[in-house]
């Protein structure tokens, strides 16, 4: 290929490394006394030593500190010595004025190292062991210097000049900022240019000290650069060799703001261009960061950085991939497409240190990964048909090249696509390449095909030992089991007893299987490298089990292990695994939500929010917040929900606004319905509808929700026929796309519409159908609420059905009281009271509390919800009861409350505008 990447960059000598060498020389000057000249105590000497260790260890970081930073760090470390140290350092650096000086300098360095027989030296002599950390560092520097061409030495010399000069200019600009006498400083700046460097440093240091004393500002510690604090920590913990990894992770993450690199690149040009590994490590980190939280990157700023990088390193094609990711997460379709193609054209999918050339015949390039990525891209932009076409091609190509790993990932992606996006039919799309998997033919429904694919994908992932994929597949399986009844694939043959129900146990089992992942990763501990975010996983080494990668690289040379220091994260569990575990908790929360256990759903969401929120992507984190806030709204009323929403909005300020926005609209809509602000409700509902068909794709879930709410609004406005029409078309849509869980809800809504319109007989079959859906999908809470509606329907059929209704209500009560929200409980109480009241055999005066107690409960709960209509009904019933009991005072009280609620309902403008405060 024309642009094959050269061998990973070796240890390059930079001005910063020269500075470190100077310091090492000070630390280990070959003298005869135990404490060399400038040091006054052993501890002082040791402190410098530890600092140097930290410096040498961080020498392979992406950024090297500037001289200015180094000096300020030295000031921290050196204590009393700082003047001497910085003076010595700067004078030594500025004394290097010809190539020969550099030769001599590195010759002197050789003297610092002990010979091979250093074992027999005198006790109190300070000589650097060539095999110690510092010794190795020196040796590497000397070697790198000796390998330099004469031109290289000239460049090093120029760079040292720039390095020193920069320190001056940045010092003075720093001063400029602190003191507002810019005129003087400009003068002095021009003075500096003409002066001997050596003098300048002295002068500047003196000036800075003098000014510091003069201004008496905040103590210097507050200006401490971040690097220093990490370095100091490094010193404290460095006894534990493993912690080195951790610190690297942290340090590199502190550099991850793109501005840093940009500045670095800008000022220093090619000089401080890091080694191949370092840049790749940086890019990988950025890729993870983008995938985790795309909107925190600004499109142009990062693009600028990448352009710069590309200019500096045109043979590093990974940059194009980053540009692709950047435009992908900023919804720039054309640029994303262009960059994706460009990346794979250049790299053939084989670039990067994570690529291990396959042992076998495959010298072909791995373009199937390009197809996989392209498919994912179309999926992201909401072109499901194209995505499916591309992924189909990916399946075929990976089969052709027997790239099983890629095949497994592609299948998983297809499953994801099929389950996320509503396809009414796949015939003609999922064609021949799937025949080995779907041997039954294409007569299967989409769901059945999905199931077969899921099974196949899971099996494949298991046999390839792709743990993360296995876990992800288990999650997908759980999701499938949650919302689909499993039917036998073949309709002929011996009739098995068909149990048309979903099976919560299977769901639970699948979720638990996914959870095994974390324990496996814990066992393997430090040998794991991170795979980054889940979706970049396929770009990384797919051919081999991940664990062996480090070992194979470590054997070759010390240099090669550096990138892995960059990618290791502070915790021993990689972020992607944590993300998967997190999403398993999310799945659990959703599962319990569907099954109707509010406390368990809440607990799982809380676990997610507290344990894995750091590793999770911002959209997942937002989702959990949404769940928790919804829970609050249902159980604690709107006031609390809105105050929580405010916090969430601040937290996800720019990030994944849409989810939070949707939640806000949902809450507003519900509150508007309860308060009777129908206009507002309709307005909010329309906004939801607009969100449903965004630029990227039609969100089925949201679309259904929007029209469900539309129907509810119409119902509240008593436009029954229209409401019924909307609900009916909604049901048709759900049926078409096989959304059975949603169908249950829609059927229940239809039953309610008929109940309210006085058509109880028509409502009954709908309620019963909804009930049967609930039964087969184990939707217990929805079932309770359907039972309640059924009871209400019976009740409205006449007083001779009160017994039936009452039995139904009592049957549903445990579920409703245990897991239902405020509204449901209140409705149940009122329905119960109505049953009693309409029962001719029931006498109020005998047992008034049986009626009054539920009514009181209901009115309390409805008060929190501000549900005026139902509250009015409750108070009305209460007034009637009191009237019968002859308690006139209490009757008036209830009647007054009734009046209040009716007034509030009829004058909805009284309340404050919720759009303004929320």
């Amino acid at each position, binding site marked *: 290929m024309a642009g094959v990447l*050269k061998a990973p*960059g*070796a240890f390059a000598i930079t001005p910063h490394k020269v500075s470190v060498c100077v310091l090492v020389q000070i630390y280990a000057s070959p003298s005869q006394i135990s404490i060399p000249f400038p040091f006054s105590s052993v501890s002082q000497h040791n402190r410098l030593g530890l600092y140097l260790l930290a410096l040498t260890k961080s020498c392979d970081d992406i950024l090297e500190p500037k001289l200015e930073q180094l000096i300020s760090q030295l000031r921290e470390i050196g204590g009393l010595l700082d003047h001497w140290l910085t003076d010595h350092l700067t004078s030594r650096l500025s004394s290097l004025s010809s190539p020969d000086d550099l030769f001599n300098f590195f010759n002197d360095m050789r003297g610092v190292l002990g010979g091979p027989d250093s074992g027999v030296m005198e006790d109190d002599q300070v000589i650097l062991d060539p095999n110690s950390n510092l010794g190795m560092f020196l040796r590497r520097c000397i070697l790198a210097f000796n390998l330099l061409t004469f*031109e290289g030495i000239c460049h090093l010399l120029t760079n040292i000049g720039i390095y020193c000069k920069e320190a001056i200019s940045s010092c003075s600009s720093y001063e400029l900022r602190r003191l507002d006498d810019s005129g003087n400083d400009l003068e002095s700046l021009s003075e500096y240019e003409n002066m001997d460097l050596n003098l300048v440093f002295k002068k500047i240091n003196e000036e800075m000290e003098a000014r510091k004393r003069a201004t008496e500002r905040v103590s210097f510690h507050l200006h401490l650069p971040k690097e220093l604090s990490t370095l100091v920590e490094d010193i404290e913990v460095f006894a534990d060799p493993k912690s080195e990894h951790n610190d690297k992770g942290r340090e590199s993450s502190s550099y991850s703001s793109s501005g840093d690199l940009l500045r670095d690149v800008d000022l220093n*040009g090619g000089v401080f261009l890091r080694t191949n590994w370092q840049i790749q490590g940086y890019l990988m980190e950025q890729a993870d960061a983008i995938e985790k939280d795309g909107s925190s990157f600004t499109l142009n700023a990062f693009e600028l950085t990448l352009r710069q990088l590309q200019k*500096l*390193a045109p043979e590093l094609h990974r940059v194009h991939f980053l540009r692709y990711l950047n435009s992908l997460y900023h919804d720039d379709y054309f640029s994303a*497409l262009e960059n994706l193609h460009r990346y794979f054209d250049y790299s053939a999918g084989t670039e990067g240190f994570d690529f291990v050339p396959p042992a076998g015949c495959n010298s072909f390039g791995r373009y199937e990964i390009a*197809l996989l990525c392209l498919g994912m891209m179309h999926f992201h932009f909401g072109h499901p048909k194209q995505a499916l076409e591309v992924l189909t091609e990916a399946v075929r190509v990976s089969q052709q090249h027997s790239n099983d790993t890629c095949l497994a990932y592609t299948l998983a992606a297809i499953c994801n696509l099929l389950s996320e996006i509503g396809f009414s039919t796949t015939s003609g799309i999922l064609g021949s390449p799937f025949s080995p998997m779907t041997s039954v033919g294409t007569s299967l429904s989409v769901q059945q095909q999905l199931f077969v694919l899921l099974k196949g994908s899971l099996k494949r992932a298991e046999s390839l030992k792709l743990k993360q994929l296995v876990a992800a597949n288990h999650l997908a399986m759980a999701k499938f089991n949650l919302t689909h009844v499993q039917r036998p694939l073949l309709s002929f043959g011996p009739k098995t007893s068909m149990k048309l129900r979903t099976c919560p146990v299977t769901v639970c089992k699948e979720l638990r299987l996914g959870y095994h992942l974390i324990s496996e990763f814990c066992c393997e501990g430090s040998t794991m490298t991170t795979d980054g975010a889940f979706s970049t996983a396929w770009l990384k080494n797919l051919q081999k089990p991940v664990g062996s990668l480090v070992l194979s690289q470590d054997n070759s040379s010390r240099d090669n292990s550096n990138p892995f220091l960059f990618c290791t994260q502070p915790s021993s569990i990689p972020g992607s695994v944590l993300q998967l575990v997190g999403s398993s908790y999310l799945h659990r929360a959703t599962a319990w939500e569907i099954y109707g256990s509010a406390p368990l759903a809440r607990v799982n969401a809380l676990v997610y929010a507290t344990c894995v929120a750091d590793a999770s992507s911002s959209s997942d984190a937002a989702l959990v917040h949404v769940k928790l806030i919804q829970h609050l709204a249902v159980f604690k009323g709107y006031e609390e929900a809105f105050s929580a929403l405010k916090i969430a909005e601040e937290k996800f300020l720019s990030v994944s606004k849409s989810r939070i926005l949707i939640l806000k609209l949902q809450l507003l809509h519900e509150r508007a319905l309860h308060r009777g602000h129908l206009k507002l409700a309709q307005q909010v509902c329309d906004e939801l509808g607009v969100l449903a068909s965004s630029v990227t794709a039609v969100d089925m879930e949201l679309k259904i929700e929007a029209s469900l709410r539309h129907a509810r609004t119409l119902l509240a406005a008593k436009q029954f026929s229209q409401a019924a029409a909307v609900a009916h078309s909604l049901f048709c849509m759900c049926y078409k796309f096989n959304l059975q869980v949603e169908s249950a809800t829609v059927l229940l809504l239809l039953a309610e519409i008929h109940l309210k319109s006085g058509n109880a007989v028509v409502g009954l079959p709908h309620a019963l159908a909804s009930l049967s859906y609930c039964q087969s999908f184990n939707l217990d809470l929805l079932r309770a609420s359907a039972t309640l509606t059924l009871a209400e329907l019976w009740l409205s059929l006449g007083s001779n059905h009160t017994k039936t209704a009452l039995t139904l209500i009592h049957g549903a009560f445990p579920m409703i009281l245990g897991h239902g929200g405020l509204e449901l409980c209140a409705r149940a109480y009122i329905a119960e009271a109505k049953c009693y009241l309409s029962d001719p055999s029931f006498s109020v005066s005998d047992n008034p509390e049986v009626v009054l107690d539920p009514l009181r409960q209901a009115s309390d709960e409805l008060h929190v919800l501000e549900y005026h209509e139902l509250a009015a009904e409750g108070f009305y019933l209460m007034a009637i009861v009191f009237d019968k009991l002859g308690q006139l005072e209490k009757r008036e009280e209830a009647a007054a409350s009734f009046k209040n609620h009716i007034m509030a309902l009829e004058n909805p403008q009284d309340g404050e505008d919720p759009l303004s405060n929320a």
Partner: protein
Amino acid sequence: MEEDEVIHGDFYLLAKSYFDCREYRRAAHVLRDQTGNKSVFLRCYALYLAGEKRKEEEMIELEGPLGKSDAVNRELVSLERELSSLCKNGMIDPFGLYLYGLVLKEKGNENLARKVLVESVNSYPWNWSAWSELQSLCTTVDILNGLNLSNHWMKEFFLASVYQELRMHNESLSKYENLQGTFTFSNYIQAQIAKARYSLREFEQVEVIFEDLLRNDPYRVEDMDTYSNVLYTKECFSALSYLAHRVIMTDKYRPESCCIIGNYYSLKGQHEKSVIYFRRALKLNKNYLSAWTLMGHEYVEMKNTPAAVDAYRRAVDINPRDYRAWYGLGQAYEMMGMPHYALHYFRKSVFFQPIDSRLWIAMAQCYESEQLHMLEEAIKCYKRAANCNDTEAIALHRLAKLHRELGYPEEAAFYYRKDLERMEAEEREGPNIVEALMFLATHYKAQKRFEEAEVYCTRLLDYTGPERETAKSLLRGMRMAQSSFPSMDVEHFHP
């Protein structure tokens, strides 16, 4: 005063000699205190060239493991400062303006650079370097039309050249032909006309022009790569080898020479050697567009698709309008069995060159491939191809076949007839004729249009093979049908 000028003149001459010996800094140093326009220009230009030279050297010295480093011309800043102050004070001549424009362009300030260069060429139109810098800044027609150029015959040269760069070949050709009326013996114009005609795919005439050109200017290397491309397409082995020999004797280390040799080896089928020479051409000029594309073709021949993809991609990154490279990319991916992925590239290629039938046919074949099997789209592409003068006559035949397969016999008959007409006009022979005749005969028979059917059947009798027998039986069947339903005939004759 006069003595002064003499002394200054001496300084200038010394500097010019140094400059001619490529001792740029030395030349600049000699002129350090001179203030005459000529001296200032020479000093600044020498400094600029010195910076360029150092830049090139540093590029190699600093080449890191990740490719190029960002070596810059270190003189640009000071030159810009000096020239802008001169420009502000109005003490600058057209040459100084040219240099100023050059520096501004390097610094990335394109708008100002354009303005300055326009000023330069307006006051002194005979500086072709200024024109060509201006040309490199005219990347779209809009920019070109926005330039405020005063009329001069040099402007015609400029426009012709820009049009060629903007792929407006016909406009360019007419400009050059006009110019040729004035400058009858210009080799340059002749070569440019040849290049324009080459882009219009008029190979015969191009060959003639180049032969003529080589007679007048036998040691020419410039533009000879185009000539070699023509010889390549016409498969003139000996002429191409002769050309290669000639250029190598003239100047071995010219990218054009290497390209010509590469073409020769490619024609001989020695693709490895060909790649070596294309690589050499690219070493000499990294942005040599056609070498990248041609190297891509070689890699395709060698079945090294990843390398081909890489080479093509470099070509399109140098010039995104290079439709041949996009086409090559599409072909490479199609070869790898990724037709859907390849479509993206074919789309790009037809976007930039919608009049080339080969591109449309390639795209149609991609749609037709068994993996995609998107026949409707394929038909659309073939229709486009048939509309743009499909020399190989693939499109019509495929259109007829596809329509037949999709069960549109009327359309199929239409295209078979057109195809047949075309083949007759070009006096082609082959199985396609038999196929067309066969289909038309059966089709018309089924339509009960026996006369037409008979015509086709009789024509089929001229061919050997099983079709002849079928035609015979068809004819027999038709006669039977005609004789068994005489009443219908009667009705026809007596309405």
